[in-house]
């Protein structure tokens, strides 16, 4: 097990390293990745351009530039954005991360609760019209582009029905930190939470239902039934518990992806200054340092989540260890 964990960790570091190199190369293959335009103005003297390039180490060879960037990103942590010299990359991410985290955490709570409810309900109602109905609803949830759903939510809550009793409480787009005003924090995030969770409710409900139906035929479930346990106990205690293993590992991966910046579209649509939005803004401006940092940040969470899920799985199921 220890060897497995160590090997997985080494793999993780290797992947992260490769990602930094790859990201660096992708963007250095791009013309115009250059802070001089944002700083030098319309008609700079060659001296000014050279000074700016030197300041960013752009007059060095590519490997040196890469090392410089990594040093400023991880060791001295004073890497600044090409777009705005006051934007320090590391603090920008650490200040954006709580926003993303708030968004994802709230959405996760909603999606877990509703997915379990929907999934279990579908199994209970199996054979009635409600099971396929719930599953179609879940499919619709999966089929909706999240940015579009967000737009429609904005249309309804910010404009069309904003002045009715239904949505007059909806605050303008944006974000209020939990620490400064918990109630406003909550209000600002309710609509984004729901929007983001719709897809996952649909997906997880379907996965859960399929799993529940799978385990229904397992011997231990039959045994439990044969013992005369109530249907509810069988479902909740025996079936749900097993099915949740898949559920939880999927959750780990998705949570990692979302915290790592995967909620980009939701953040962009709702103007939430999280990591996804930071990434998007920097991509639009080809702001290499910020892109590097956010991509590494995102990859970090995804790889960690992958590794954790692998390790947890290996604990639960030794068969996959050699893989």
């Amino acid at each position, binding site marked *: 097990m220890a060897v497995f964990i160590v090997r997985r960790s080494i793999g993780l570091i290797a992947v992260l390293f490769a990602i930094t190199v790859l990201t660096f190369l992708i963007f250095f293959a791009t*013309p*115009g990745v250059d802070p001089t*335009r*944002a*700083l*030098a*103005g*319309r*008609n*700079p*003297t060659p*001296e*000014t351009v050279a*000074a*700016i390039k030197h*300041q960013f180490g752009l007059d060095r060879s590519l490997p040196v530039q890469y090392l410089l960037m990594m040093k400023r990103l991880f060791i001295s942590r004073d890497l600044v*954005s090409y*777009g*705005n*010299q*006051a*934007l*320090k990359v590391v603090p*920008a991410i650490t*200040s*954006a991360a709580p926003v993303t985290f708030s968004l994802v955490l709230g959405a996760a709570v909603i999606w877990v609760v509703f997915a379990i409810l929907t999934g279990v309900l579908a199994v209970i109602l199996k054979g009635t019209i409600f099971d396929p109905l719930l599953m179609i609803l879940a499919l619709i949830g999966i089929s909706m582009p999240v940015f579009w759903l967000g737009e429609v939510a*904005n249309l309804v809550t*910010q*404009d069309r029905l*904003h002045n009715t009793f239904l949505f007059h409480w909806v605050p*303008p*787009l*944006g974000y209020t930190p939990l620490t400064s005003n918990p109630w406003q924090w909550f209000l600002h995030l309710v609509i984004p939470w729901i929007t983001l969770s719709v897809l996952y409710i649909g997906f997880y409900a379907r996965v859960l239902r399929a799993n529940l139906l799978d385990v229904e035929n397992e011997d231990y479930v039959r045994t439990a039934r044969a013992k005369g346990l109530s249907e509810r106990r069988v479902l909740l205690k025996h079936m749900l518990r097993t099915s949740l293993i898949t559920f939880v590992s999927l959750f780990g991966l998705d949570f990692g992806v979302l915290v790592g910046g995967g909620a980009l579209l939701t953040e962009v649509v709702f*103007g939430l*200054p999280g990591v996804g*939005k*930071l990434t998007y*803004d920097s991509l*639009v*401006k*080809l702001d290499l340092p910020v892109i590097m940092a956010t991509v590494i940040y995102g990859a970090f969470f995804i790889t960690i989540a992958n590794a954790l899920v692998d390790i947890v799985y290996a604990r639960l199921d030794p068969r996959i260890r050699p893989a």
Partner: protein
Amino acid sequence: MGGGTAIKPREGMDFVRRSVFLGVSTMLVVALVAGCGGGGKKSSKTTGATPSAGAKGGTLITRANAAPSGSPDPQVNYTLQEWQFLIITHDGLVAFKRVGGAEGTKLVPDLATAIPTPTDNGLTYKFTLRSGIKFSNGKTVTPQDVKYTFERLFKIGTSPNAGTWYNAIKGGDACVKTPKTCDLSQGIVINGNDITFHLAKPDPEFLFQIALPFAFVLPSGTPNKQLNIPPAGTGPYKWVQYAPNKQMMITRNPNFKVWNKDAQPEGLPDSIVQKFGLSVEAEVTQVENGQTDWIANADSIPSDRLNELSSKYASQVHINPLLATWYFAFNTRIPPFNNLKARQAVNYATDRSSLVKIYGGPKLAIPTCQVLPPNMPGYKPYCPYTVNPGSGKWTGPDMAKAQQLVAASGTKGMAVKVNSDTTDVDKAFGTYFVGLLNKLGYKATPQFLSNDIQYPFIQNSKNKVPFAFSDWFADYPAASDFLNILLGCGSFHPNSNSSPNIAEFCNKGIQAKMDNAATVGVKNVQQANGIWTQVDKEVTDQAPWVAMFNPKLLDFVSKRVKGFQWSPQWYFLLDQASVK
């Protein structure tokens, strides 16, 4: 005279091309004041120069999609977005008059007691520093601070115009070469409260340059590296927050006392904040709902909402004309548009009213055929490329003539890439011209580039862009700013990303006239303007561009904003608006 700062009232990202500053002679400034005033009256809701004394207090909440690009350092930043804050937190020796309307282009003494008359053939400017003015950190402003400020401008190494403007000061060129050891003792001589600037060469634009934030006085000892928030200044406000992914904020400077209300009046709101991060659509909704007071000009209001704004929120909308021309530049050196007839054909065919519609309608833009915008010294309406030429006004496209010219040019069937950027409106222009060129018999395809990349790309002759969108905002009213910079032989630099003559246009005869106008202009502005009028006409006949229109700027403020004032130099004067 001085002129508009230049931020295209759209997005903040590519401010560079908008931030065009060129000095002009004082006489030209006077001319502008007249012109601008005239222009201002025509426009429906141009704010007058009379400030309504609003109530003090409250917070003016403004919004922008993103923080001003570049650096927050006042000696490095080059955006109107930040300058609108800097002018009320800092002062230079002289300043543009802080009032709305044409008066706003006048220079008035600020930290200096008076505007000096240059002596020594324009090489010496002697200022006297007002005494008793304090920085927001409590220190008193001294002449040493002024010298320190100018030395810092070079020492910082990355100030955009240190090497193009301020190097006029004696010793400046050496400072550009070796910023670390910059010493301006030769150029700035202090004697008591007197500060004498010695220039290495005469520079009629010097006073304007020192009225801009690059030259705003900072306390001695301010570190010679880029700051993450502007340091202490002398204005009625001081910087308290600069978080580029959140907001920037200024509040009252307790050490401020009015010394010249023309240069630096007291501000009305207690604090002014600019929040970042929302899309412009959301910003408009916020202003409508009273959650935001004003949208920074860096964000352009979607044209689709203009109707809603002008009907439902008419009293909150302010429209002012800009000294700007939007155009598509032909590459005059590669086929098919190295052919004059082909260029003229496209000019005849262009339905400028369609383009105006894309931009936001006739109230936001006026069709044009020529290079110079209205109100510019030397401007005389001239439009040969219309159905009924003669009036100087564009009235409609002449398709028949266009087709005839294309046929005559022998360029029919040639492939043309229509280059524009990815902003919605600019993209629409590109799409329009693709359709038009195809109609004329070319094989046109669009090429839309990210805003950050398009401008340097189209400047570089290496990229061989045949037809590209661009625009130009005057920073002050000088015909040379348009004609010489955009179409002069000297501003074409082959294979350079910084070659503002996108058309690669160089006509020896016209160039000689431009050079002549510049020389004459030092002595006789009137005569020079006459030459510029002729140059404008000749250039227009050569058709290096399809000039599309001259835009106006729309500001949308919340209901509670009282006393909106609009200066041609600084646009909306934030501190003069009341939110109480």
